[in-house]
């Protein structure tokens, strides 16, 4: 049936076309059942009753076109895909029938036909593989999972923490029947480094000669021991800052003796 050679006598040719038309008519009933033109082509190729590798693409093209003609005759609405394929197969058919034109660009008719055959074979192979896959033992049908899964239970363990400070503060709170009050520095009797620095910067311009650091204590801070300590410390820290900045020089004759400072630019 699969005549590769187009040079057949008219009668045979016509008979074939009639057979095609009959087949197409049978297929057309089921047009919705096809998953696209490739699927239709695969179904048509089955009618050739040969191994897909030996399929006659030319014959197939003819069968397909007969199907489309029949569908048109019956005024069936076909998806555009089918018509595109029909146009392409008509083109392929002419390519296969005509002697090759050496000037022609692109793949030859044979190459196109070979690829179509490959596509059909591949689709058939995938269908076959799908069937084999579905025929396998399946979970929930042939084999089963554990029916009473014992899921991992999440055990939430809470670790409470408290520090020694929490504990002492808690105790203090209960013992004083009062809120724990964190120790706050008494600002009244405190001179900060910033304050001392600010003040020293102003005064240093006058310190041309070595002068005792103690003499820079601000007024009112010399007598009260608390205030004096704070001011001395702040002043000392401030002089260190100023020395570091290259503004002044510091000297101390011996340990625990008076600390003296003077302006830096006055060479001594």
């Amino acid at each position, binding site marked *: 049936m699969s005549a590769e050679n187009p040079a057949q006598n008219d009668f045979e040719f016509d008979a074939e076309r009639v057979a095609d038309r009959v087949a197409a008519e049978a297929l057309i009933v089921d047009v919705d059942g096809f998953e696209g033109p490739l699927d239709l082509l695969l179904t048509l190729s089955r009618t050739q009753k040969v191994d897909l590798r030996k399929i006659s693409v030319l014959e197939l093209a003819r069968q397909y076109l007969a199907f489309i003609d029949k569908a048109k005759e019956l005024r069936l609405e076909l998806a555009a895909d089918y018509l595109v394929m029909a146009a392409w197969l008509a083109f392929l058919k002419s390519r296969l029938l005509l002697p090759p034109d050496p000037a022609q660009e692109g793949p030859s008719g044979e190459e196109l036909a070979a690829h179509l055959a490959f596509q059909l074979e591949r689709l058939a192979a995938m269908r076959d593989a799908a069937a084999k896959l579905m025929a396998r033992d399946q979970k929930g049908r042939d084999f*089963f*999972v*554990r*029916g*009473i899964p*014992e*899921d*991992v*239970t*999440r*055990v*939430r*363990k*809470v*670790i*409470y*923490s*408290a*520090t*020694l400070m*929490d*504990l*002492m*503060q*808690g*105790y*203090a*709170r*209960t*013992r*004083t*029947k*009062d809120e*724990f*009050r*964190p*120790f706050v520095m008494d600002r009244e009797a405190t001179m900060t480094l910033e304050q001392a620095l600010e003040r020293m910067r102003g005064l240093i311009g006058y310190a041309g000669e070595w002068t005792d650091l103690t003499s820079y204590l601000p007024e009112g801070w010399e007598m009260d021991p608390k205030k004096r300590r704070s001011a001395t410390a702040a002043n000392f820290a401030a002089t260190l800052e100023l020395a570091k900045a290259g503004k002044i020089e510091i000297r101390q004759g011996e340990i625990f003796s008076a600390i003296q400072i003077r302006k830096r630019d006055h060479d001594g």
Partner: protein
Amino acid sequence: MTDDVNAADQPEKDQVDAPTETQDESLFDAPPMAEQERMVEAILFATAEPLSLKDIASRLPMGCEPQTALVHLGKRYDGRGVNLVRVGEAWALRTAPDLGFLMQRETIEHRKLSRAAIETLAIIAYHQPITRAEIEEIRGVAVSRGTVDQLLEMDWIRFGRRRMTPGRPVTFVVTQEFLDHFGLETARDLPGLKELRSAGLLDNRPPPTDMPGPGEAEDESQDDEEQTELFEE
């Protein structure tokens, strides 16, 4: 476990076994016992609930002896990670009880101890051994059962000796676990109030009550010693 299974099974088994001989010659050609055991194994594995002997039998081919198959299966799983267990009148495969820990996954959550718990704990630490009534007196509020339970559960406090006073109330003391947690060698290492105050952790105002006032009004002469020692400077 196998022993249990076997013992429990025995009487029934005999009943079921009895017809075996005749069964074997029966029309139904039951599968070999090893196969029956496999079947029971698969059924018990896959079903969502324990199955009674009747349930199992109804799923097996005709002529099977689930009772005997269960005995074999019980033996096979004896000492395994999974055991055949009897649940009422039914049978199930369950993970071995000693491996339950594998089915749990701990998530640890860190939480700050509540103020009530800290205060209670601090009072116990500073005044141990101390009764609940004493804690309440110091805190000025009732100590909830939950707070004490929590501290007991955390293993930071434990019950001490009972007081030799009317009602013989139980006392609380801190534990080694407590000392470890707070990095203390003994409860005596806890800083005294005077230290707290001089460290600036306490207000300088004189406390409303005498400091430290252990035991207050109570006659616990035997504890005073420890107590005083604790706060001596």
